[in-house]
């Protein structure tokens, strides 16, 4: 019984992990860059949603598209002015540039918004549904549903829209894509902006049950990377599987081990998976 509850909780929260991590894997898949600043866009999304709630009275889930748009715009500029310049540089330079961007965004938020912990109060925040003996937390459920929706839209976009196909072409072979008339620089901006926008969307969706403050990204950054690498860098399906796996492992591990070791168990599982499948669960074999 406790197993079922833990499994359910793990799946719900795993869905959320998936939606905030999809953006990260998208950026890697198209541009080959591991964006350490990704979690900062989560924070940006959360702040935008909070302000929309505080000043416009919008529920954060409703304001999620606004978060997406804001992060999209900021991401567009960041890619164009900063990341774009190091696409040809060694991978390490790219990584540490994103680390610099991380510090910049986090502390700009501190300076602009202050250090207070802000959260929203929504009517459904303390509600839960009861399926027999099981509790289903309503904010988690809503977040999960939004994640599924988001994933579905993205899947359609990548598979069936011109932009999506152009992005996949750019990812597979930038030179060939260029020869086919695709403006790869534009595509990179699109991919990055889309990626961070998705993470920001996720941030808005989880705001009802968390708090936002400038360093909140730090709580999620290692989780996001675990999700993405576990599933296989660059694979959207991998991010989904990875997210669900991480959620379930985290949740079910508390039945057997102290809660304090939650992340330890997760990391050990992570390392073991990689030891046997170096490309991640879904990642393409090299």
């Amino acid at each position, binding site marked *: 019984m406790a197993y079922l509850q833990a499994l359910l909780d793990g799946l719900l*929260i795993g869905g959320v992990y998936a939606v905030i991590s999809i953006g990260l894997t998208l950026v890697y898949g198209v541009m080959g860059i591991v964006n350490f600043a990704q979690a900062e866009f989560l924070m940006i999304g959360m702040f935008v949603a909070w302000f929309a709630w505080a000043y416009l009275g919008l529920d954060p889930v409703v304001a999620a598209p606004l978060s997406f748009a804001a992060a999209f715009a900021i991401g567009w500029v960041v890619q164009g002015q900063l990341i774009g310049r190091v696409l040809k540089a060694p991978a390490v330079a790219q990584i540490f540039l994103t680390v610099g961007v991380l510090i910049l965004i986090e502390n700009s938020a501190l300076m602009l918004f202050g*250090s207070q*912990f802000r*959260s929203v109060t929504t009517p459904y925040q303390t509600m839960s549904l009861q399926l027999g003996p099981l509790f289903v937390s309503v904010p988690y459920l809503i977040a999960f549903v939004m994640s599924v929706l988001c994933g579905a839209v993205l899947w359609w976009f990548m598979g069936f829209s011109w932009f999506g196909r152009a992005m996949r072409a750019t990812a597979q072979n930038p030179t060939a894509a260029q020869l086919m008339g695709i403006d790869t620089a534009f595509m990179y901006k699109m991919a990055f902006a889309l990626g961070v926008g998705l993470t920001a969307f996720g941030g808005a969706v989880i705001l009802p049950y968390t708090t936002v403050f400038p360093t909140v990204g730090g709580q999620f950054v290692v989780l996001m990377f675990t999700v993405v690498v576990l599933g296989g860098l660059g694979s959207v399906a991998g991010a989904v599987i990875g997210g669900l796996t991480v959620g379930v492992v985290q949740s079910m591990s508390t039945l057997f081990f102290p809660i*304090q070791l939650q992340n330890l168990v997760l990391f050990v599982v992570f390392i073991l998976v990689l030891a046997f499948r170096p490309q991640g669960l879904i990642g393409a074999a090299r």
Partner: protein
Amino acid sequence: MTKKFLDGVLPMSRRHVLATGGAALVAAPFVRRAGAQSGTVNVGVILPLSGANAQFGINSRNGIELVADEINAAGGIKALGGAKINLVVADSTSTPTTAATVAQRLITQNEVSAILGAFASSLTLAISEVTERRELPLLTMSFADQITGRGFKSIFQVVAKASVLGAAQLDYTRAIAEAAGQKLEKVAIMYEDTAYGTAQAEGLRQAAKKAGVQVVMDDAYPLGITDATPLINKLRTSGAQAVFPVSYLNDSLLIIRTMRQQKITIPAIGGAAGYVIPDFEKGLGEFAEGVLSISPANYDLAPELTDRFRKRFGYFMVHEALEHAVCMDVLAQAIEKAKSSKAEAITAALRGARFEGGWTKAMTGGAVQFDDTGLNTLSVPVMVQWRNKELVSVWPKEYAKGEAVWKS
């Protein structure tokens, strides 16, 4: 493109420009400030002004500034001819070794006579390694037991120890429950796993053992936890009559909200930190009402003093601001007593001494008395309760400003 631009601006003499620029940068700090001019006393303030504890660091700084400005407005340090207090504020960051390097800088470059800080015990402990070897006084409200447990002679802690705080958290609750007709027999402890939570939980545990109360759940959780459901699931099945969470803000909100979701209505008695700041009430709204928490001190014990903070900064004087204000006042009194701005003299004036009047009235006990380990023996924790967006002291009776409301 950037490279071409820079090449155009800095041609062949690139290295030359770099060299001179570098030299200027290196020379700058040497060229700046001379030591304390007569007429000022430099006091170092090292607090986390960025990173996860930024809010607490900023609150603390506000408390110190309030008192320093008051002292200066009233004529400064009279024993030194009206010398003004000059606060030298620096960000400790969240890394203890950086905090120690900052302390070193303040001592040798800014010639501070004392240091106040650094909220988080690990930062304070790191700084104390530097200040102790210089016999420079360090005044703090960090409360890990280790701070006063190493036999150091120049560290001064104005609040009770973590284990005492934890014990009070449990003992006061039992008393309040008993007064309301309930005997507590089974309790749950949950705590975030940094120095703060771990130390206080130990106090809770020991007090429970001594009182014969059964601890049916005793779980640590990682600080950045994003989901409290496993904790609350465990709580639900544990049969506890009350829960003692020791948390910062993010986790405190997660815990209380998840408890509500699962319709768990047993009383939660918080362990200070996240439970006693305005953001807690802002986050929970009506669900904050009636939540109890232990606190090292509370602003309603001396409203004539703490209202000045509210007037200047716009929110009630949170306990870390209050305690740092007391540190500043005690330091000023010690400098008056020592009639000197030399660190060793101030340390000697602080050691084992009693300080009254001024902001010391805001502490429980109405004064500050340091024993030879540097601990303020008069400080007694208070139990506070959220009432209508304010924190009201409700226990022990001699400090209570309101009746404790116990909802079992």
